Structures are given as structure tokens and as C-alpha cells.
């Protein structure tokens, strides 16, 4: 269902974009400033400034409204020079805490004017949406075309059936005109035919066999998959999108999952990690200038008030994520063992591309997951298969030197797998 609604949304969006774009081209000259300004704003200003609310720097829109443009240009380029020159307005403005604003000498007057234009105009809602959707429609096309093809095929089958009927009718009419008597097929009653079929031992045998096979295989598969939760995708308290963060924004896995390369746990990031960006990234442009409700959940958990930018310890309430990847308590798994020591072996075994993080080997294409789901079965068989087949990369790791030297199998030139070094023994994971 999710996919269908997405497709519908995208179809609607593209239609909308088309309409909007055609309108926009007419008033292009004015809007161009704003679009250009928005781009510059995102590049240079947005890490400290927001349009409507104070963050590290003051809110831009209300401030710029009563401000002389010439002053603003000078300020942005080098506010310190203004202060040193004794400009009263500048001295007053420089008292704003908490942080000093950097200089932007490279920006041209035109560029700064564009930024101011953008800031004054506020978020150009329609334009922004248009930009956002043009970005996404490109990858939406493939699914759309497949759906289209399927629809066309269905439609043509429907047309063919109708046409077939029409042809039959026409044939009949022609034959009747020619005076040919049409004998309708004698319809055997349905029940009688069924009885005949029941008497047919071969048929019955076939049906029974079919039933046994289908039920058996259904049961067999059911049993094999008991306790296997591949595809497990619980809904989380915050609709965090790995697709957006790891995919679109290309944030490294370790930025949030800091433990993965050091510890047995990859660790779910604490909320202060979220705040590194989301103190200023509030996705207001998508929510009519309001802070995104999902980002507000981060603030709520921390007792953070975005207006005053203060934390209230008494309102803290930790976020209870639903654990997706569950190993039983009696199985020991260590992330660092796999992603640090075994990285080369795993990459080779799972055929990862050089630009993909080693995490993908077991967690799948996380950068495309809107909501995270369990990609691998996490069964013991799955563990062991890899331990049997993966070829360890022992070169350059002095730990293995002595072991390799002593190992007969390796002397014979056989593959060095974890299994060859005792990686299949019970106590290596169960203790």
C-alpha cells in the first residue's frame, strides 16, 4: 500500500510541478533573485541563521525588514570594520551573543542583495516545493513507468477481451444473416461434471498430491522461518529516515553509530548527536515555517525550547526506540570485530562496492531505507555460512602471524576462513 500511495503522490506532484513551473517562467526575473538567494543562504548562512526564529544568530526576516540594505551589505562582508569605524548601529548589533559572526568578503553586492531578497520574501513556499520535487521525480520515474506499463498491459487485455466478444457477436450476426442455424454448446451442469471428476482416480490423486505438496512446503517454510524476522520493520517513535540522512545527505554511519568500530554495540545515537545538526536544521520550509513535528520530538525528549534555546532537565524524557535487530542473549556478537578486523574479508565475501560502507554487508542498503528494517535473517546458519566461506585478510595484522605460521591447513595453501581458525566452535559466540 505504501508504494501505491507513494506513486500516486508522485504522479500528482509531477503534474503540479509542471503547472507551477509554467507559471514560474512567466515571473522568472523576480523569482530568480529569491531562488539564487535561497541557494546562497543555504550555503553560507543557514548553519547559524533561520528566517523566522532565533538560533545561533538572530532571525533574519524580521530583522532585515527595518534595515538599510547598504548597511546590511557592509555588515555581512566585514562587520568588524563597521564596528571599528565606530558605527553605532553596528556596535549595538555586535553585542548579540552567543557567537561572533564570520566575514563574507567573497560575496558580491548582487549576491548579498539576493540573499536579502530571499530573507525578506520569506520561504517561497511553492518554489521551494517545486525545487524539492524536481529533485525527487527523477528517481520516481522508473517505478512510475513500470506501473504505467502494467496499467497499459491490463488495459490492452481488457480491450482484447471486449474486442473478442464483439467479434464473436459480429460472427454470429453474419452467420444468422446467412441463415446458418447456430447450435449452442450443450451446457453440462456444473455439479455433474464435478462428480465425474471425483470418480477420476488420477485426478483425485493429482489433487491430493498437489495439496500435500503445497501444504507441506507451506508448513516447512513456516517452520524454517519461525523466529526469523527478515523484513521486520516496526514503526519507530520518531520517523527517522535513513534514506534522507545516510542516502541524500551522505552522513557517515559512524557519525551516529559511534560504537560500531570500537565496541560490541554499534550504539543508537544519544539525542545530543541529533542536536549537532537539528539545533539549526528544523525543516521549517516543509512545514509552513513551523519546525518539523519529528524534529520537535527530539526537542521534547531533551526538554529543549527552540524559542529560548534552553534545556529543561525536568522535562527530559528518553526516546524508546523499537529494537530492529535482535540477537538472543546467549549469542555474543561484536560489531568492532567484524567491521574493523574483518572488514576486508566481509567486503570481499559480500561483494560490496568500494564506496559502500561495510555495514551494508549485513544491514543492506540502509541509504535507501525510509524506515529501517531487518535485511539479513540473523540466523545461526547465516552467521556460519559466512564464517565458513569468507576468506580472512590476515596480511598486515601481526596478531595472526604466529597462528598462521603454526597452522598446517594454511601451509597447504587452503583458504583462511574464520572456521579454519576455530570460528565455528560453540564457545566463540556462546558464553
Amino acid at each position, binding site marked *: 500500500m505504501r508504494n501505491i500511495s507513494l506513486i500516486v503522490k508522485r504522479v500528482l506532484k509531477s503534474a503540479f510541478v509542471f503547472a507551477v513551473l509554467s507559471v514560474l517562467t512567466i515571473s522568472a526575473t523576480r523569482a530568480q533573485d529569491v531562488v539564487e538567494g535561497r541557494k546562497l543562504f543555504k550555503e553560507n548562512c543557514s548553519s547559524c541563521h533561520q528566517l523566522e526564529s532565533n538560533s545561533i544568530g538572530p532571525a533574519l526576516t524580521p530583522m532585515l525588514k527595518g534595515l538599510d540594505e547598504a548597511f546590511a551589505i557592509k555588515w555581512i562582508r566585514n562587520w568588524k570594520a563597521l564596528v571599528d569605524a565606530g558605527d553605532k548601529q553596528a556596535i549595538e548589533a555586535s553585542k548579540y551573543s552567543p557567537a561572533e559572526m564570520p566575514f563574507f568578503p567573497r560575496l558580491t553586492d548582487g549576491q548579498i542583495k539576493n540573499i536579502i531578497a530571499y530573507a525578506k520574501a520569506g520561504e517561497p513556499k511553492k518554489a521551494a516545493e517545486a525545487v524539492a520535487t524536481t529533485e525527487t521525480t527523477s528517481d520516481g520515474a522508473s517505478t512510475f513507468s513500470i506501473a504505467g506499463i502494467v496499467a497499459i498491459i491490463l488495459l490492452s487485455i481488457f480491450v482484447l477481451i471486449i474486442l473478442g466478444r464483439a467479434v464473436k457477436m459480429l460472427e454470429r450476426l453474419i452467420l444468422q444473416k446467412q441463415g446458418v442455424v447456430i447450435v449452442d454448446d450443450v451446457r453440462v451442469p456444473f455439479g455433474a461434471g464435478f462428480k465425474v471428476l471425483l470418480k477420476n482416480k488420477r485426478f483425485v490423486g493429482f489433487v491430493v498430491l498437489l495439496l500435500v505438496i503445497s501444504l507441506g512446503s507451506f508448513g516447512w517454510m513456516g517452520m524454517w522461518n519461525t523466529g526469523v524476522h527478515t523484513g521486520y520493520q516496526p514503526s519507530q517513535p520518531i520517523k527517522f529516515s535513513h534514506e534522507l540522512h545516510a542516502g541524500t545527505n551522505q552522513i557517515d554511519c559512524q557519525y551516529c553509530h559511534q560504537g560500531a568500530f570500537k565496541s560490541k554495540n554499534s*550504539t543508537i545515537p544519544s539525542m545530543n548527536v541529533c542536536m549537532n545538526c537539528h539545533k539549526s536544521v528544523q525543516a521549517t520550509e516543509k512545514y509552513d515555517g513551523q519546525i518539523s513535528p519529528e524534529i520537535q520530538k527530539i526537542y521534547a525528549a531533551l526538554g529543549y525550547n527552540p524559542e529560548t534555546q534552553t534545556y529543561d532537565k525536568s522535562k527530559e524524557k528518553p526516546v524508546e526506540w523499537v529494537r530492529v535487530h535482535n540477537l538472543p542473549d546467549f549469542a555474543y556478537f561484536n560489531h568492532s570485530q567484524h567491521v574493523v578486523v574483518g572488514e576486508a574479508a566481509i567486503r570481499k565475501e559480500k561483494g560490496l562496492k568500494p564506496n559502500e560502507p561495510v555495514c551494508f554487508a549485513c544491514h543492506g542498503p540502509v541509504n535507501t531505507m525510509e524506515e529501517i528494517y531487518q535485511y539479513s535473517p540473523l540466523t545461526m546458519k547465516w552467521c556460519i555460512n559466512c564464517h565458513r566461506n569468507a576468506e580472512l585478510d590476515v596480511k598486515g595484522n601481526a596478531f595472526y602471524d604466529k597462528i598462521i605460521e603454526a597452522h598446517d591447513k594454511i601451509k597447504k595453501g587452503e583458504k583462511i576462513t574464520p572456521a579454519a581458525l576455530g570460528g565455528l*566452535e560453540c564457545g566463540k559466540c556462546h558464553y
Partner: protein
Amino acid sequence: MESNKKYWKGLEEYKNTPDFVEINKNEFAEPLPIEDVLNEAGLSTVTPRRDFLKALGFGLGAVTLAACQTAPVHKSIPYLIRPEEVVPGIPNYYVSSFNGQSIIVKTREGRPIKIEPNLNAGPFNRGTDALTQASVLDLYDVSKLRDPILSKNEKASWAEIDAFVKSELTKSQSSGKKIRIVSSSISSPSTLAVVADFIAAYPATQLVQYDAVSYTGIIKANENSFGKAVVPKYNFDKADLVVSFAADFLGTWISGEEFTSQYVSNRDHKSLQNGKMSRHFQFEAGMSLTGTNADTRVPVKLSEEGPALITLYNAITGANLAGGALPNNVTADKALKLVAKELIQNKGKSLVICGSNDVSTQILVNAINSAIGSYGNTIDLDNPYKRYTGNDAQFSELINEMNRGEVAAVFFLDSNPGYDVANTKSFTDGLAKVNLKVSFSDRKDETSTLCNVIAINHNYLESWGDASAYEGSYSIIQPTINPVFNSRQAEESLLIWSNGPVKEYYQYVRNNWEATVLPALGKVWKDVLQTGVFITAPKPAGTYTFSLSLAAVIPSIVANSKALAKDIELQVYESVPMRDGKHANNAFMQELPDPVSKVTWDNYIAIAPKFAEKLGYKEFDIVSIKDDKGYTIELPVLIQPGQAQGTASVALGYGRTMVGKAGNNVGKNAFPFVSFTNGTYKYATTVKLESTGKREELAQTQTHHSFEGRNIIREATFTEYKKNPAAGSGNEHGKHKSYDLWDKYEKPGNNWVMAIDLNACTGCGSCIVACNVENNIPVVGKDEVRRRREMHWIRIDRYYSFNVDGAEKHVEEGHGEHSNGINAVTKENDIAHLENLDNVSVVHQPMLCQHCDHAPCETVCPVLATVHSSDGLNHMAYNRCVGTRYCANNCPYKVRRFNWFNYWNDSRFDNYLNNEFTQLVLNPDVTTRSRGVMEKCSMCIQRIQAGKLKAKIEKRPLKDGDIKMACQQACSANAIIFGDGNDPNSEVSKALRSERIYYVLEEINVQPGIGYMTKIRNTDTTVQA
């Protein structure tokens, strides 16, 4: 020739009683009721066969259906703001101190889970004692109070308490009455400074220090003899000859853990390789841990202790003091004369100590030590111990003051006189007359319930603080967890009440260090937080000569001795697990078997076999014990070989009534037997015994596993060892050639093996508790121990054997060819020596999974739950085990343990882990085993794996010593050596190449991975009698 000396674990085994033979036929203690169920009569019992089968069928179906439910939803809750140093899954280590000893606390995700020794803190800080290991459980004790209490208000706020106490203090001060702070000895410089500040604010205050088990006798004696009121520093490492009179210095006396380390450094395999071994005589009434380790142990009655010391003094100095006669103990008399000669021979290299708390006796001991030149060598009066500074007389006077109504306010800091004072009634009566009574206890205990304020103190793992165990040593206490409950550190409370400028104790400690210790050493505060301990260069130990007259003390000693020579002489002593009872609610300590009697969860009255026979008592008979003051308790009898005739021993620390779920009403309180005479508390008295006709089986672990008389303990004397280091190991004439039916296991990578030095092991049991904590081993409780279901992965087997007339032999035969005092009593002629059950020698043997290469358990497991690994370990996969118990049946070492219950989550075992709070002590790297599976020593495989991974990540080879077993780490004696047998230069490989190495039950060729080094006894005298 293999020794055919006979060893026995308990008297029933020695005598081979019919019960014992019967019980030992079966592998498990309780017979299975299979025959009852299957015979015809089974149909008419409460649960007939058919019903049983119906229930079985239903159960199977129900379980199958129940298993079909969907997987439970697990929540993951990350930190809101992650502390910088915490990475979930990686332990953090902090230095701290416990009882003055510098330790390292291992924390996971902010909760302390294990205590390890701080190896920076001097050469003899090698391990920790059992109590230190167990102390981490005290933090997670559910019996602690959550909020402070003000009179009837059970949820008082600190502001209310501060207001109340301050106003009461002001009233007390103006009333002109006394204010007293009662504390056990304070060795913390900062705490002492806090108390001094408090006294400055309320000048009517005085600090009264007393210890439940007192060392005032030593302090007063040293004050009298040398003008130094201290407990001196003893250097057992410098003593070639140790003579101890009832001082349990390897167990509970002063600083057992450090003394063990010093003492063993003269006796372990390294010392033996250098051809050196100290000699140790023990004269005592009850069999102590130290007594079991002595080369020669001579039982002496309590009343004979004084005369024995006089005899020794006379023999050394040639003086002729009166009272030095032991008419009824010829053995001791002869032994003492021999000891005197050896002491003279070893002048300056020997040490005489005495466990008595009598000032006169200790003055005499000082005189002896002075005569043999101990001062400046083995005894250091200039760098004294500071852990014990109690003053019995002062405390006794406090009780009088309270009874006279002179005391207006009293504060109890780390002390519980309501339980451990000798005269409870006069204490409680006196306390009732005090206006303001404040306890800093963390729970409602025997004293704090009598107080109007319980200002609950932090656990030491939540506290700031410091300690100075001996002169020149300073260690820090730093918190490893945020306070769990609404508690406040006692020192901080005192600071607030004394209205000082600094109210935060952290700041106070820091200021104190920055003002005193740190500048002298040129260090800063951060340094101490990392190293945990600073030791300044010791002052030169001066030589002191005893020059006073003994005329005054001898009559007092003789009078004491005469007073004790009637009825039955009762010794009350600190037992290794329970000590003074402060930690009685610690289930690990309750279940730690006493090192000698192997009794858990109880105290008992120990009586010698022959004496018990004379009195007509059998083992486990409950007798009533009554002293002159009329105090009576009932305790079961324990027949203790080696106990002096005519004496009995009862352990202190039991019988707490208000300590918590685990410790309440375990055993009986023996503190009221303590008496106050001549200015100190005395731990010897006389009692009358009376039979009650009742019986109660003690929960002993000692006879739980029979070894069927096999040759598993091997020993030799030091003389034999010097002739042939392989003496007694069974390999002195070369090894037998052995043949294998099975293929050899390949161990190409590592080969984890262990060597255990029986000569270093003192049997103290700290390895057992360390293993419990590391491996989440459940405590099962008294009843289950009685059913032989204790879960300890490592146990210490204690074997008795006979001496032929013990010390007498020395004297009579001198240094002849066959003069070893432990002349073997063979099976053939042992009956003739039954008379001498007093004179036993003891061997402690740590026993754990031997990780056999040809493990008998592996071949019988029907589900392959226990299998061999390529690095020499015997793995146990709990999730695979179905609980047939075949493996335990087939294990020749009896080291496998079966989970009869879900001990950590079963309301029937409600003394321990059955709550979410206490479960925080569990080690997250080790699975908690569920009901119905077998478990055993895993050779701390989690530590092996972690050590390997660390090396792999750092891309370096594994070094010897990177991986330490929990038991090895806790062992102060270095008796356990672990490492890679494939590395010829590792410590363990070197140890296993020792000639003393033998393997237990080598003859069955299971090829164990643990080698034992023979026990060596230095019993041969070098002097002519």
C-alpha cells in the same frame, strides 16, 4: 615411589561411615523417584502414572503452543546526552579504594560490576580478598533505605534533617553535655579532617573509635613498650621464620590480603626455584586458615597461650619467668623449645605474632620480638598501619557516660554497636538517655533503628574519599556511579552541620589533597585520579629494644590464663567469609564456604573429635552454649579435627537480625561472649555446654564430591624437594609412557592452560567470589547447598592428613634422615593413629574444570553441547544443553554444576538476584543460565575473546599477561598462573615445566589442561633439640 599417604575431606569419609558409602554410590545426592513411579504402587500415589503422563502430554502441547508466539518487542533507549567517556559495550575502569586497599573498579554503561586489584599500589597489592570482590554486590542491595529517616518520617528531606540536627546540636552544645561521634577506625585523612572541623564547630564533641574486632591490645602494648601507640607494619616477606600464636594473619588478622602476598613470596614456586622457603609455626586453639597453611601446627588451649609465650620467652632469653610451664601439653612445650632455638638462629629474619587483644600478652610478644631482633627488620614501627586505631576503653567509657546521662548527642559512623557490642543491654539502655541519635547507616540496622535520624550514607562506590592504610600511603576513593538512592555522604552531612565554608565533600577532599599530599609529591589532582595511590618513600624503620621489666605483666598473663582454665574454653573469632558481620547481607559472602570447615550460611560450635566423643556430642547436634554472664545461644556442633582438646570455637559476625533479606537470622550472635577486662575486649571466655536433643544439618560443601581415595594430592618436604625437585610429584622417576586411543587435538593457535601452585594457595576463597562476580554464578541458599547444589565453578578442596605425632617427631629425631614431621600415615597403619586426630595437616586444592584434551564429558553428551575447541578449551553451549547431566556423571573432577532452578529469577530464592536492581550487578558479557542446563568453568572465555579482539584491532600479537582469569586476578598469592601453552616463554609454560608439576588423575589419561605443583612443607628442623 608414589606416596600412599591417606587424605580425607571430612570425618565421615575418613571413617567410611555406612551413610557416606551409600551416598557416594550415587552421583547426585537425591535419588530419583523413578522406581516409585513405575511400579504398581505408583498408580495409587498422589500423582499416579497415568496422571503423570497426561500432565506430561498436556505440558508438551502447551509448551509447543506457547513457543509459537511472536517475538517480544525489545526497546532500545539511548542516552539523552551520552557522557563522553561511556561507549556502551566497552568497560571503563576507575581507581578507588576499599578498606584502605587501592582497587580498580570495572564499570559497564555506568554501573560498577567488578573489582580488580590496582597493581600500581606496591609490590604486595597483587590481589584482593573475598570481601573486596563481593563488595560490589553491596551497592545493589535492595535492603538499603531509599530516603533518609527523621523520627517517624520515613521519607524525610535533607533540608528537614539538616534543620533538625543543627537545632538539636546547638541545644546540646548550650546544655553543656557531651557530643560523641562513634566510628570504626578511620584511616581516611579527609574524614579525620571533617571530624576535626566538626569538633571545632561543636567543642563538646569527641571522636570515639572502636572496632568490632579490636586491635587495641597491640596499640596499647606498643605505647607501653616503645612509646608508639600504633599497629606496626609487619613484613612477612622478610621473615624466614614466622611463629604465630592464634593470629590468623592469612585470613582476618589486620591485613590478611597483603600479608598473604608477603608470606607467599617466600614460599611460592619462584622462591622454591631459588631454593628458599620460609618456615611457619602456628600455635592455636581453633583451626584457622593460617593454621592450615602452617608447616607445623600445634594445638594449644586458650588458657595455655600465655604460658606458651612465657615458655618461649624463657627459652629464647634464658630468663626464668614464672608461669612458663605447660604440664598438660608436652607436644607444645617441646615444640616451643625447638622454635626458640630456631628463632635465635634466624635472628632478624623472623617474626613472632599473637592474635590476642590482651595488652600484657602483647607486651610479652614485643619483648620476644625485641630479643630476636625483629624491630627494624620484620616489624616496622615507624611506618605503621593506620587501618586500626580503635580504643576499647574509650568506647567502654562512652557507654558509661551515656548511662550516666552525660551525653546529649551521638553520631554513629560506619559502626553498629547495637549488634557488635559485648554488653548490648547496657548500650541500648544508655542510648535511650541520649537526646539526639544520628546513624549514618545505609539501612535500618540494630543501631539505626534506635536512632531518631538515619542520614543514609553513600555506598563506597558512590563516594568521594581517601584512605591511608599505612604511613606514607595515600589512596583515593572516587565514585563510579551516581548515587542510586536519595543518600548523602556522611562526611558531607557533617560538613553541612558544622557550617564549614566548604560544604561539598568532593571539593573538601580535593582541597585537602592539594594542601597536604600533592605538593609534597609534586603531583596534581588529575594524577591521583589516574593512579589511585601515592606511596611516599618510607621512613627508615628504626630498631627498637624492649627494655622494660616484665614483672608487672607476667602475673596478669598468668591470672588470665588461670581464669580461662575451667569448664570449656570458648574462642570467638572472625571467620573469613563473615568477618565482623558488617557485610552479612552479602549473599556471595554467606555462600562462600569457610576455608576450613566448608560450612556456608551458618555459624557453629567447633569441637575436637575426641573431645566431642567425651562430651557425648555427635556432629550437627544442637547444643546450648552458656557463659558466666548468662548469655545463651544454641548452635550445631561441628567436629573439627585439629581443634585443641577442651576448647570450642564460634565465629563472630553471624546472627544479625536487621541487616536485610539475605543476612537476617543467619547463625547466632557471638559478640556477647566478648568481655571487657583490663582495658580491652577479650575474645576468649569459658562456657558450659548443654545438649538440647535437637539436630540441624549444616550446609557444608566439603563432602559433596568423593574422590574415592585416589592419589590426587601430592606433597613433599622441603628437604626432599631440595634433593629432588620432583619429589612427591609422582614423576620423580620419570614419566610413564602413555598411549592414546584417540586422535590428538590440534591446537595450532593458542593453547590455554593453567598452572596452580599448591604451595602458594592458602585456601582463602577470594578466587571463588571473583569467579562468582565475573561469571554471574547464582547463589543458591542454605537449603540448596545442603542438597549439594552449590553452583561455584571453582571450589577449594580441603584435605586433611595425619602427622605422626607432629612436632614431637621433630624433637625426638632431630635432623635425622627420616625426620619429616609429616611422616606419612599409610592406609595400613592409620587406625593406630586415630588417637591423634588433633594433629592433622591440611592441603588446599583449588578445583575447577580441567579442560581435559580427552574430556570424558564431551564423549557422553547426546546433543554435543559440550565440545572441544582448537585452543584447548572445553566449551559449554548452554543454549544447546538439554540437561541430561550425563556429563556431570562422567566428569572425574566433579566440577560441572546443574541449574536446578532459575536462581536469578525465582521467588523461592528471594535473598539475592530476584529483583531488577540487584540484577544490575550481572556481567553483560556472560549469559545468565536458565533452569535445566549444565554449566562449569569456561576459563573466562569472555576475557580470552576480549583480549584477542583487542590485539586484533591493534594489529599486534597477543602478549603473555594480556588475558587474566578472574580467579588469577583476585589471587593475592599468585597461586594461579594462566596463559598460552604454545608460547614457550609464557609464565604458564615456564611454570608447567617445573619438576613439581603433576596432573590430577593423570593415570586416567584425560589429559587435563591444568597442572598442579606439589605441596611442599618445610617441616625439617635445622637445630638439635
